[in-house]
């Protein structure tokens, strides 16, 4: 069955890079996975995901806070949260893909 990947964006007030790029890279690199967006307070969405990717526009990492605020109401199902909080021009696309592969391996 396709691995389900929930994407949670930070609010994007003043991002230092184009956040959508992360989603584009992941979608291109893992075409067999099922991607969907988790909205704020969306506990059902969070429960559905095998992996949650938090995409923040700067090192403040608000996406992580947002995920944590949803999952505080969440008991039971174990999930893997991959928090991408420092990606910017300096980080290679390859690093991101390798990091994500690692998360998928762990999941198995």
């Amino acid at each position, binding site marked *: 069955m396709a691995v389900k990947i929930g994407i949670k964006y930070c609010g994007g007030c003043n991002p230092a890079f184009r956040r959508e790029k992360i989603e584009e890279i992941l979608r291109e690199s893992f075409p067999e996975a099922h991607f969907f967006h988790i909205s704020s307070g969306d506990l059902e969405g969070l429960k559905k995901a095998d992996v949650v990717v938090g995409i923040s526009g700067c090192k403040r*990492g608000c996406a992580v806070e947002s995920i944590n605020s949803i999952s505080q109401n969440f008991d039971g199902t174990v999930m893997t949260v991959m928090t991408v909080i420092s990606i910017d021009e300096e980080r290679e696309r390859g690093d991101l893909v390798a990091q994500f592969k690692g998360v998928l391996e762990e999941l198995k």
Partner: protein
Amino acid sequence: MMMNGKEYIESLRKYRPTIYFMGRKIESVADEPMFRPHIHAAAMTYELAHDARYEDIMTATSHLTGEKINRFTHIHQSVDDLVKKVRMMRLLGQKTGTCFQRCVGFDALNALYITTYDVDKKHGTDYHQRFVDFLKYVQRNDLMCVGAMTDVKGDRSLRPHQQKDPDLYVHVVERREDGIVVRGAKAHQTGAVNSHEVIVMPTRALGPEDKDYAVSFAVPIDAEGLINIFSRQTNDTRRLDGDIDCGNAKYGIVGGETLMIFNDVFVPWERVFMCGEYDFAAQLVETFATFHRQNYGGCKVGVADVLIGATANLAEYNGVAKASHIVDKLTEMIHLAETCWCCSLACSYEGYKTPSGAYVPNPMLANVTKLNVTRFPYEWSRLAQDIAGGFVITTPSEKDLRNPETRELIEKYMKGVDGVETEHRLRMFRLVENLAIGAQLPESMHGAGSPQAQKIMIWRRGSVDMKKELAKIIAGVSKDEHFRKIVGKSEEEFFKEMLKKIKNG
């Protein structure tokens, strides 16, 4: 063990640092009248930690030992810690009306905690553990550390290894089995004479040829070969004349800086936190600078609070407090100070966690904070000078006030409104002179880096490419996906249809 103010002053007696001032070798730091005001200001950082009214921001719980410690030895574990740090700065500025000196070492501790962790990850070294051991020692003994970054730098256009004299930046001159030997000098070392330890860091980004300059370490203030030459300040010897003329006799002005010379100082390996990793010099400098620039909308605003109070008092003593332009000018001073405060709070609230687990303020906003502090204090000081009047620099001396031959004349002719003692008016003039004319201003300019250093960081982190793209979207040069969704068609189609409709009436 957390010391109180008195215990801190006593603790200085255990050290035997080599210090020179005005052609003399100083025998006892704790008893030197020229140093005492600075010592009192630093002692406030100890004293308030024992006061129930302030301990909430003055103390923290060590993440290493779980013990209650003075916040000045803490590693920030959350955004709340970053916010409490600047609250503490403002409080201490208000209580001392000057620089209380302990933040430079505090910032060095935090910058090194973060950077040694990252260096080890890349190079497989064990600096972080060494540093943590040192940190525990600092926390356990509640020590005050110098944050020694600024090298004397010689010819500013040359890199360290290009200088004619290689010692103009601190560098390693010998590597031994048991440690390293360092030589060079650091300038403007705040609080050095009354600190227990010195933490040294490089002052700039370094390349492979500057490897020996990529050095960070800690030594006690009385390490062999370490020499401090205490700097002169404007009007400094007024503090030997009584308690009025220097304006802030109890706590002084600025931090009390030294020229610190490392005359072949030996550092054992367990006290070395960087040695040759030039690729991390820039990170260490930038992390330290971020922490230190965060402070300036705290400490300087606390000092501004005192200046605003002193100026408002003088307006009252002079009988102009109700004049509308005076109220307006005081309001402007408050506005400028609170703007700097907003910056310090903002960069703290926007702080984040680093891989080491420690938190750092938002670097862009920390640099904006400091850049504002290179400007706004000049304006609030100008307003204070305006309101205070010319006596701010022409008041008779305390000695003439005490002289029976001139006392009555001064009492009579220096009087302001009825009901206020002349001496109080004189004291207030002197305080404004201290706060709005003295060394506080160049300290705001250069402390934590000259304005250009902040401009460089702001430009680098300004995401100008992102901003260019925003403009392209608004100007219709790049596609606007949200506009398309709002109007249900492309921009071209939308405007074509709109013009058609207008044309057809």
